[in-house]
């Protein structure tokens, strides 16, 4: 028997097969990265005691959104674009913060009070008792709701960045990114979080400004 020479396998259709696979994956998969506003809901209703009544009116930043997507902030009708500045002013509590000594914040009677707290890096410090309360109507559009949420988060973020820049010479975002690398930085992040804690309370739903 003569030895048969093995002929080379034709690889011409390899490209076609690969294209087929490629198209299959293009169709069945998605590439979108998920992004969003991360929030924490309050625990189930039955656990809420009468705490809410104890919080004094001056400590609450009241935001109402009605069915026509109009904003009422602290009794004043404003646009979304003005909300961030107003919220920042309120959360900061006193324009001179952190160099204030008056716990009752007497010179600004419409702004929140302070409370002395232990803050990691700085030690004893006055921290504002601010709470942002957001109430929306059943007819408010989701788009508007997200806009308001976005402005509030932005307000907190900007304040944190300002304080961080002033105290540590670095923005809060940067600190947060490096937090994993050293404990000292982590402490700083904690300190800033403690001074400006994100307190956005979403009250039980109510009907404001009559939708059907």
């Amino acid at each position, binding site marked *: 028997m003569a030895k048969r020479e093995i002929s080379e396998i034709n690889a011409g259709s390899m490209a076609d097969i690969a294209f087929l696979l490629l198209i299959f994956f293009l169709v069945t998969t998605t590439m979108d990265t998920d992004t*969003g506003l991360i929030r924490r809901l309050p625990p189930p209703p039955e656990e809420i005691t009468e705490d809410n009544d104890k919080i004094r009116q001056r400590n609450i930043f009241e935001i109402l959104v009605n069915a026509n997507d109009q904003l009422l902030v602290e009794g004043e009708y404003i646009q979304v674009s003005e909300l961030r500045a107003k919220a920042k002013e309120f959360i900061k509590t006193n324009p001179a913060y952190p160099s204030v000594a008056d716990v009752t914040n007497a010179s600004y009677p419409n702004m929140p009070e302070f409370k002395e707290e232990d803050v990691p890096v700085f030690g004893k410090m006055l921290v504002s008792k601010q709470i942002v309360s957001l109430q929306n109507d059943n007819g408010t559009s989701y788009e508007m709701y997200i806009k308001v949420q976005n402005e509030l988060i932005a307000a907190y973020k900007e304040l944190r960045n300002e304080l961080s820049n002033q105290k540590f010479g670095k923005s809060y975002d940067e600190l947060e990114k490096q937090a994993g690398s050293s404990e000292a930085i982590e402490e700083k992040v904690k300190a800033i979080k403690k001074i400006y804690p994100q307190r956005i309370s979403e009250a039980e739903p109510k009907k404001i400004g009559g939708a059907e």
Partner: protein
Amino acid sequence: MSKFRKNGKKGQPAISTAALPDIVFMLLFFFMVTTVMRETSLKVINVTPKATEVDKLERKSLVSYIYIGKPIKALQSAFGTAPRIQLNDAFKTKEDIFQFVEMEKEERDEVERNMITWSLKVDQETKMGIVTDVKQELRKANALKINYSTKKTDKILD
């Protein structure tokens, strides 16, 4: 000038396509690595609003999705145009959310059950009524870590 005259019959050699499969495979692997499989087919219109202060969702295996919006065009004759809640692959009512939460928790490891993020993918034209209902249900089911799914933009237009 015959030196430069081309001999018409010779022609150019055909371009070798031997490397084509390699190129295509490269593309294939790129897409396999960077994308994820579609898990549910959307039955609701879902255009999420835009926001500037967004965070990335880190661990996809610890995210469960709740879709809210109008039924898509093809289903509107059967289901109407009122906003609906979609869990997994079917329309559900808000009473089903509690069970959905329990099922999703059951699927994960015990240690990770409290780390699940509930991503609310809500169409931007939806009214808050249904969203509030869903949020109240999530609270009852002790699913507190939520995420309002939004697209990232640089500037919000009024």
